[in-house]
């Protein structure tokens, strides 16, 4: 199919799609006139039942915990696919990554910022069910902090700390931990992923039952999965640089 044929077909289909979408948009409830029952119900029930102040994280890890399990497995599979794809192809012997950061200011400030970034990520995860945050956001923030360590200082020195032998088990523990916590409920005769522990004190870290554990399991898996991704991509970039392949 040539380019012009493709664009012509798309134009026709796009016109039809646009008409359908506009028709749907006009027919939806007005903006602000939310009619679904679950939103108001969850806002009413979640702080009372689980003693959490953050209803969104409670929804992610408790009321819709099964969907989150599916999303985590998507993440797991996508990372496995990336690792498979980027390890094919001729590699030959792998030269050392090059030390191409010349500026001392970048190194010093970057190294100082890593601690702050990882700390913010940990805080986002820990207080995820009290204030905005959660396992997913905090996990990405921690992974970003560690990538800063690799990029702003030296990939050769810190790269082995993100090797597959460390990150793969961590990712597995994160994903498997989520499933094990769900199975623990199944083992005691309740449905899968039922919230097992008591609610705790309202609005503190000690609340939500099994939400903190699921929260940390998800954060661990997201951090490890993204670090595997980033390290594979950085290897793709940095190692050919060292081979003298400058642009």
């Amino acid at each position: 199919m040539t380019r012009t044929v493709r664009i012509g077909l798309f134009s026709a289909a796009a016109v039809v799609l646009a008409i359908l979408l506009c028709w749907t948009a006009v027919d939806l409830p007005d903006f602000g006139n939310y009619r679904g029952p679950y939103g108001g119900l969850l806002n009413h029930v979640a702080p009372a039942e689980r003693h959490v102040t953050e209803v969104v994280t409670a929804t992610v890890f408790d009321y819709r915990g099964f969907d989150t399990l599916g999303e985590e497995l998507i993440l797991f599979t996508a990372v496995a696919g990336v690792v498979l794809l980027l390890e094919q192809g001729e590699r030959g012997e792998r030269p050392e990554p090059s030390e191409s950061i010349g500026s001392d200011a970048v190194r010093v400030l970057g190294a100082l910022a890593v601690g702050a970034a990882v700390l913010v990520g940990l805080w986002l995860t820990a207080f995820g069910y009290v204030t905005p945050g959660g396992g997913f956001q905090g996990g990405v923030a921690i992974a970003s902090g560690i990538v800063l360590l690799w990029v702003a200082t030296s990939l050769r020195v810190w790269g082995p700390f993100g090797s597959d032998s460390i990150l793969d088990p961590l990712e597995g523990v994160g994903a498997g931990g989520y499933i094990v916590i769900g199975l623990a409920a199944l083992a005691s005769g309740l449905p899968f992923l039922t919230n097992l522990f008591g609610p705790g004190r309202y609005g503190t870290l000690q609340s939500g039952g099994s939400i903190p554990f699921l929260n940390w399991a998800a954060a661990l898996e997201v951090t490890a999965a993204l670090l595997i991704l980033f390290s594979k991509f950085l290897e793709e970039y940095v190692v050919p640089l060292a081979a003298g392949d400058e642009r």
Partner: protein
Amino acid sequence: MSVLPYLVAAWICLVGLYGIVTSRHLVHLALCLTITQSSTYVLLLAIGYVKGGGPPIFKGVKLGTTAVDPVVQALTLTDIVVSVAVLALILALALDVHERAGTMDPDEIAELKG
């Protein structure tokens, strides 16, 4: 204009699809796919909005104040994080195609030879 957010979501979806169809670079194609994805985020959050409602977080806020729908937010935020990994997978596929075909232009890539 209370249907404006829904129309914006439809517009973004169509723009993303146009970008995919007329793309000349595989990375550009992957990014237009993420734009189409983002139209669903806008649509979901627009559906969940409650007039005069604040975020569904009650730390220091009296219980019972109007808040927006938390379910659509839960669906959206996990999707955003997972979309990075999916984009990485698509880019890895694009790099693989680039190694075999030598070009990043979707129009120039001939059929895959087995």
